[in-house]
């Protein structure tokens, strides 16, 4: 069995269990076997494992490229970003596995926040590197126009979504974090969507398959953060399991994407 198959066969049932828990929390399965503590520990360990796999292969991808390859630096930033996420998750997993709870905010959030500038820089770096590769993937002007449209759209959506978050009756650090993650995600999404536009030109090839996994993963990750803020506004804390499932699927896709790129470099 391949490493890829093992990851999928582990992560998908875990994500499915979280989804089922969100849809039918009253099932005896979740009362007697997969209790809150068990789910918290399994979920935390799974997310940490997937992030470490993603980091490992992203770092290998950077190392496999020549020093003057324009994609090497973005891969390095991407690897550092995933490592920061993994460290954040490690802190969170410590609480979840050892203590059985998830404090929010925690020191882990410092690592999560550090990851965003790295990942955003990496994604814009990939856009620049791939545009300069000389393939017909769209001009800088076309990419700038797409980025501008997306930025304006996300600014409008973000304002509508995040204004109620900032007005919530909770401590300021918690509100800042709950609003800060989606705000950073919206910035990251601008770069991701431009990269998606570039990757779409490679449909049917190995380059596209590797990027499709990575981009679906990053978009799902952003969706998880945005859903968290949205559910917080709605006061729907019972839907946390859906967010856990989203993160697990997103980290799985990111791991598979970095592995796919590693195959390309062999």
């Amino acid at each position: 069995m391949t490493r890829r198959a093992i990851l999928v066969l582990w992560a998908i049932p875990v994500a499915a269990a979280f989804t089922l828990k969100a849809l039918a929390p009253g099932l005896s399965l979740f009362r007697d076997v997969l209790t809150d503590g068990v789910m918290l520990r399994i979920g935390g360990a799974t997310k940490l494992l997937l992030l470490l796999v993603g980091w490992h292969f992203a770092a290998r991808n950077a190392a496999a490229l020549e020093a003057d390859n324009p994609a090497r630096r973005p891969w390095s930033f991407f690897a550092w970003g995933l490592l920061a996420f993994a460290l954040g998750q490690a802190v969170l997993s410590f609480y979840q596995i050892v203590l059985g709870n998830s404090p929010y905010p925690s020191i882990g959030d410092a690592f999560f926040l550090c990851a965003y500038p790295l990942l955003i820089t990496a994604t814009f770096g990939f856009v620049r590197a791939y545009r300069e590769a000389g393939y017909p993937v769209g001009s800088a002007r076309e990419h700038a126009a797409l980025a501008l449209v997306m930025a304006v759209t996300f600014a409008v959506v973000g304002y509508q979504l995040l204004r109620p978050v900032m007005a919530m009756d909770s401590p300021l650090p918690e509100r800042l974090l709950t609003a800060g993650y989606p705000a950073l995600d919206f910035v990251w999404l601008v770069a991701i969507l431009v990269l998606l536009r570039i990757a779409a030109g490679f449909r049917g090839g190995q380059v596209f398959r590797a990027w499709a996994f990575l981009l679906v993963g990053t978009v799902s990750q952003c969706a998880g953060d945005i859903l968290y803020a949205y559910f917080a506004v709605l006061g729907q804390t019972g839907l946390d399991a859906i967010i856990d499932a989203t993160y697990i699927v997103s980290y799985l896709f990111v791991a598979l994407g970095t592995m796919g790129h590693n195959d390309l470099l062999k």
Partner: protein
Amino acid sequence: MLDSRVSLWRMERTVVVAEIVKVLSPYLGATMAEASTRTHCEKLGIVGQAMSADQTDALIGKLASGLAVFVGREKAAVVVQEIRKALGTQGMPS
């Protein structure tokens, strides 16, 4: 690189492009493989029906340098060998 002994080598542009696209498609996808090959042909001023060995070399070089950004220089060199092998069966010395 090709030497002067093969300077008389010429091939139908459509055949060269088709062979290159065939090799690049698994990596870049058929659409991008074809579009990039045609774009580079235009940029290199390869517009006639026939292609010389030098023009073919230049085209492969351009495509390989772009491909290297995605797959690394080592893998791109392997792909170039695949292209040369495919063209070799069409009569181009490798």
